[in-house]
């Protein structure tokens, strides 16, 4: 059974209930071979449930999962042959690194010399040679992470599932491993589904991002689409648009919104008529200029090396997060402005 050369993985209204709680409400998604998909969402959005359903660790309540024309949601985890990297790595503590990585091949009853060869290959791929005879407990967090990845990919699975694999690592190692994971994915040509709550991780790793909220798909798109034009205000908030301001939108020749008492032009996402609206602006798109239309008082200003990150209060009591390359200090009166195409306006 070689599923390695599959064309597409198809989730068809995949749902999962826990008692009366609908943890997943009909996720539909097509994943092509070679794609890197990130499932992104805040905690409790159902992304880990989705991954466990894909893995076969949780049965579906309704819906189906197809690998090309083969229905696989009726198979147990051992019948699907997917690789999985667990959040806590789940390395077998009583087996050496080599035995851990070779476990999947051993379960397939591969000949000993083939196992040895492929384990060496996998260890080289994750840059972990010379550690083969150690127990997982003797390795650092980053090394354990590599073992977990090697163990998942050595069986050459059609699909690799990763459950927040970097969340237990420190900031520096996280950046390193992020690049490693992208490199390994590229060299394997399998599909990867990666669960994370970190939008930076999703943006930098994924070919496509699926944003989940309350068990539902909110938006599916490329990182550029999600970064530049979130489809909903809650997705925008999650993608770094920290300023979500309630406003009245007036649709004329231009779309006019009021932010902090000042009238600005914005870009409509789903506005079809004048009325209540939400304006979303990234802190880095609000710039401090001498003639900006919004006047505000700096509440706090944090020094961030290249620039300052601040919170300012406008005359009508709106809090705005902004970034500034010029030094600002608490209590200072400033004027803020934003380009029309940087102000996304959603119907409220």
């Amino acid at each position, binding site marked *: 059974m070689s599923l390695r050369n599959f064309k597409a993985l198809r989730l068809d209204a995949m749902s999962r209930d826990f008692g009366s709680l609908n943890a997943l409400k009909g996720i539909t998604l097509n994943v092509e071979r070679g794609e890197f998909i990130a499932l992104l969402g805040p905690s409790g959005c159902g992304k880990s449930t989705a991954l466990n359903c894909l893995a076969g660790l949780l049965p579906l309540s309704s819906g189906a999962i197809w690998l090309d024309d083969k229905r696989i949601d009726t198979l*147990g985890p*051992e019948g699907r042959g997917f690789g999985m990297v667990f959040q*806590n790595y789940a*390395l*077998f503590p009583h087996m050496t690194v080599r035995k851990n990585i070779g*476990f999947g091949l051993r379960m397939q009853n591969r000949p000993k010399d083939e196992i040895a060869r492929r384990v060496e290959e996998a260890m080289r791929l994750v840059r972990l040679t010379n550690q083969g005879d150690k127990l997982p407990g003797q390795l650092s967090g980053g090394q354990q992470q590599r073992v977990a990845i090697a163990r998942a990919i050595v069986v050459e699975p059609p699909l690799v599932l990763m459950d927040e694999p970097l969340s237990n690592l420190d900031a520096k190692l996280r950046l390193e491993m992020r690049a490693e994971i992208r490199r390994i994915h590229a060299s394997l040509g399998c599909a990867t589904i990666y669960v994370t709550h970190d939008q930076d991780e999703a943006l930098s790793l994924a070919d496509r991002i699926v944003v989940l909220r309350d068990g539902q798909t909110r938006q599916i798109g490329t990182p550029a689409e999600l970064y530049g034009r979130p489809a909903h205000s809650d997705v925008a908030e999650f993608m770094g648009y920290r300023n979500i301001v309630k406003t009245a939108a007036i649709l004329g020749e231009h779309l006019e919104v009021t932010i902090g008492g000042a009238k600005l032009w914005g870009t409509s996402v789903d506005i079809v008529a004048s009325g209540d609206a939400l304006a979303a602006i990234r802190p880095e798109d609000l710039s401090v200029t001498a003639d900006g239309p919004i006047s505000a008082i700096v509440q706090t200003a944090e020094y961030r090396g290249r620039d300052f990150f601040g919170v300012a209060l406008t005359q009508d009591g709106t809090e705005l997060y902004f970034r500034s390359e010029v030094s600002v200090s608490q209590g200072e009166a400033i004027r803020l402005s934003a380009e029309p195409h940087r102000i996304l306006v959603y119907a409220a």
Partner: protein
Amino acid sequence: MKGALARKGFDGVTLLLLPAVFFVIALFIYPFLYGLFLSFAPKDGGWWLGNYAKFFSDPFLYDTIGKTLLVAVPVTIMNLACSVPVALRVRLMLKPKLLTTILVIPITLGTVLVAEGMLNYFGPRGWLNRFLMEFHLVSEPLHLIHNYWGVFLSLVITGFPFTFLLTLSYVTGIDPALEQAGAMLGARGWDRFRHILMPLLLPGLMITFCLSFVQAFSVFPSAVLLGAPAGITRVISVAAYTAAFEEYDYSMASAIAMIMAAVQVGIVALLLGLQSLFYSGPAGGGKG
């Protein structure tokens, strides 16, 4: 002076150990040493190892070691073999409290009550035999008491909860993600048990075996009440009882008690020695 002691971890709090130390000395070390010395002073005088020589030259006495092992070892294996699957199942239950409570009740009843109940239930005119006879499943009553099986059953009933609770604590100590990881790598149920659960459980099962074994080895009430205390279940504690309270030979009784202790320690030491051959680190899969 005070500082020097404190640096070695010895301060005012250490004094709180004293009551416990007192009780250990008064209730364990002193009686043990008393018994040990008593066993070297035979009642009728003579050689200081006279009691031990007598024990190992009289088949009526030294056979009790074999008889006790014949009860204790199978019972312990049986309890352990039943505990592991039950514990593995209970671990997956969302509300294991009820089942655990039911399983644990026999501990609270005490051996004598269980023995009385068994006499009524398993006896020749007991419910079990009446049921079997009524439905013509057997032609004559099964002999389940006043023989080996009476003691065996009683020790399973009273020993199982203890073994089960210990096993459950070891089983729940294993990260469920490890089994899931095994399943993702293609290991079916039996392979997961053999390659992942068992190696991680083994050290704990050894300890459980030792504790359950020691409990079963010192069987006395059920051997007398449910067994054949003059025959197949003349266990070593019965021999010690006979020496002490029927022959009034406390010295001999102490010697038997010492032999009993030596056998137990010997078997426990053997098992713990074996244990050092296995993996005995943490049973978690994550960063420790």
